[in-house]
């Protein structure tokens, strides 16, 4: 039995509850003998995928594989995939029960980003529409 299992087991005994080690930070890993290998493997796979996606986005521009006006869409798709790879392999966001906090934090972050960026675009576009640019006023004065 590794160290990590020991600590989890102990915690469960004293509590009588299925809880998570209070000392565990999100993404924390116990460096037991068995875990170093698997942990490293995750990072290497992540690095490989991230590199692949980066190369793909540069490479796409130089080929005729995609209809030219569709390239921004393709780049956005690749960028989102890139974010996904970072979240899964480097920030350890999973669907496991010990990840509820992380998933909620991610959802909160996405919500705020959408609200602030979406709101700003809406407001600024509205202002742009309502306020005459300076040179237009100048032209009126002439």
């Amino acid at each position, binding site marked *: 039995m590794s160290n990590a299992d020991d600590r989890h087991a102990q915690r469960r005994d*004293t*509590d009588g*509850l299925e*809880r998570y080690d*209070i000392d*565990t*930070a*999100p993404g924390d890993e116990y460096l037991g003998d068995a875990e170093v290998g698997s942990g490293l493997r995750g990072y290497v796979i992540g690095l490989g995928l991230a590199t692949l996606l980066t190369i793909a986005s540069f490479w796409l521009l130089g080929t005729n594989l995609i209809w030219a006006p569709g390239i921004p869409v393709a780049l956005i798709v690749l960028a989102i995939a890139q974010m996904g790879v970072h979240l899964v392999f480097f920030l350890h966001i999973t669907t496991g029960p010990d990840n509820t*906090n992380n998933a909620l*934090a991610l959802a*909160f*972050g996405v*919500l*705020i980003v959408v*609200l*602030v960026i979406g*709101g*700003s675009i*809406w*407001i*600024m576009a*509205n*202002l742009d*529409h*309502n*306020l005459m640019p300076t040179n237009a006023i100048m032209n009126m004065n002439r």
Partner: protein
Amino acid sequence: MLGKLSWDVIPFDQPLPMIASAVVALAILGVLAWVFLAGHFPYLWREWITSVDHKRIGVMYTLLALLMLLRGFSDAVMMRSQQALAFQAPGYLPPDHFNQVFSAHGTIMIFFGAMPFVIGLMNLVVPLQLGVRDVAFPTLNSVSFWLTATGALLVNISLVIGEFARTGWLPYPPLSETAYSPGVGVDYYLWAVQIAGVGTLLTGINFVTTILKMRAPGMSYLSMSMFCWTSLAASLLIVAAFPILTATLAMLTLDRYFGFHFFTNEAGGNMLMFVNLIWAWGHPEVYILVLPAFGIFSEVISTFSSKPLFGYRSMVAATLFICIVSFMVWLHHFFTMGAGADVNAAFGIATSIIAVGTGVKIYNWMFTMYGGRIRFATPMLWSLGFMVTFVIGGMTGVLLAVPPADFLLHNSLFLVAHFHNVIIGGVLFGAFAGYTYWFPKAFGFRLHEGWGKLAFWLTLIGFYATFVPLYTVGLLGMTRRMQHFDVPAWYPWVLVAGAGMLITTAGVVAQIIQLVVSIRQRAALRDVTGDPWDGRSLEWATPSPPPVFNFAALPHVEGEEPYWSIKQRAREQNRLRDEPEYEPIEMPRNSPTGFICAFFATVMGFALIWHIWWMVALGALGAFATFVVFAWRDIPEYVIPAAEVARIDRANRSARREALATYTGPRP
């Protein structure tokens, strides 16, 4: 060699700032001389400056806040007296100086008065209420505090060396751009707020982690105290909103230092984007301040009504509702900037809706008091004063949320009266309630009740006497930030507001006397058991002041109001719980990292303001080296032996046993 720095930047020709800063400098030098000559420095260094104990850091935050509140208050006195003297006259503050005074007042009150006060109370109380030994990252906590202190120091240095911003507390471009503010004032603002902002962001991260990951065994989210919930919501808002502030100010910094044009008039810049972004931070900031205050009121009202908080779950829901919706209303700070009716209407409606969350809370507090045995101690008085005052402020807020009304009232003293109404009546009353409520927990003795009640009544009356006239002159058309005015109809109201300021000043003096008197009479005001108010949450389960490890054995929590149920069981069985098995406790070692980092941050900030580039490099290098040294530390923790833990806990248990034996109140 010294950038823009020279002897000319010290305002020798202006007696007012020179005398003020000479007095402050003498006071600081006097205190330092006393500390060193009387040999207190090793104690201060060991027990406070390098401390990573959340309670000590909380006390230092609160002390910083109290000092900065005094500084900001003296600015307020200057503004009120200037306007009282400036009817068809120039008054005594020249426009240039007056503009710096109102800018410094806003900046100091929000960033260095209200924020450290709220964060200080969170530091002191949250880990105790969660039933844990410290925050998640104790040394980071110390770094946060010292970076905040750095920001406060830089703002105050601007009093003597150079000048402060003349732009108001939010430096709107193009006024804040180099073309219109060529001096160092805006740079002082930028670097002070940026450095303190880093500290605040680190605090936010620290508290989110602490509350989500480190609760006492058995404590579920829905058995956390209300103050922990509101602290969690405020910390989430800090983490989400402060990066927006940092990015916006960084763009303005690029404009000023490298000739970028994010917010300039020329080359495609858009100053309206600054207003938009700064309020995308600014509105959540309002709730970062007031949510913890709501938590304090919940604790105080429940304790002093001797009843559990009414509608605990609806309170949690209202808190989270406010947390999200606070990100959907920021346009109401600039209805008149030129957006169309659709945008203004959407944000106006969202603003009215956010008042529903606060309304739920107000009713919950009223129902908590209903049928309770209410004790009118000082913290409860602050809470009652808050409920009345805040409802008035909320109603003027909902009025301002109606865009057509806002077109008439914006930029007037009506607006100024509104936001002082909610910030003083909400945040400051909350902070003072928390200060009197938790003072015995922090220091082991209560504050003097008589002086506290006097301070409350003077502050409350002073507040109304100052701001009701400002509401009125606002409706009569007086705009904010006026150095002098010529309208006879405003004059009597401005004089009344000035008189109100005198009453408030008496309140401030009463509060200072309260502290002095309480320290002198501390033996009589001693809190022996650690539970002076018949409290309900876990902080009252510890001795006052709590030992460094807080709890001899981590409490096992079942259900809401964990300490109340423990206490009721003790009263029922007429004996304390069995003594726990004492074990040695590991605690984090003290570390000077925070202080040294902040020292270099001060050097770097000052050098950036004055364009002394070699000093910037020195400061950055020093701060980084400090971090590296900390990261390579060998022994992060020390052990408190079980015998020592047992000695401290047994002393407290015997005091509690005695209190239980003489207890005459109701038994379950």
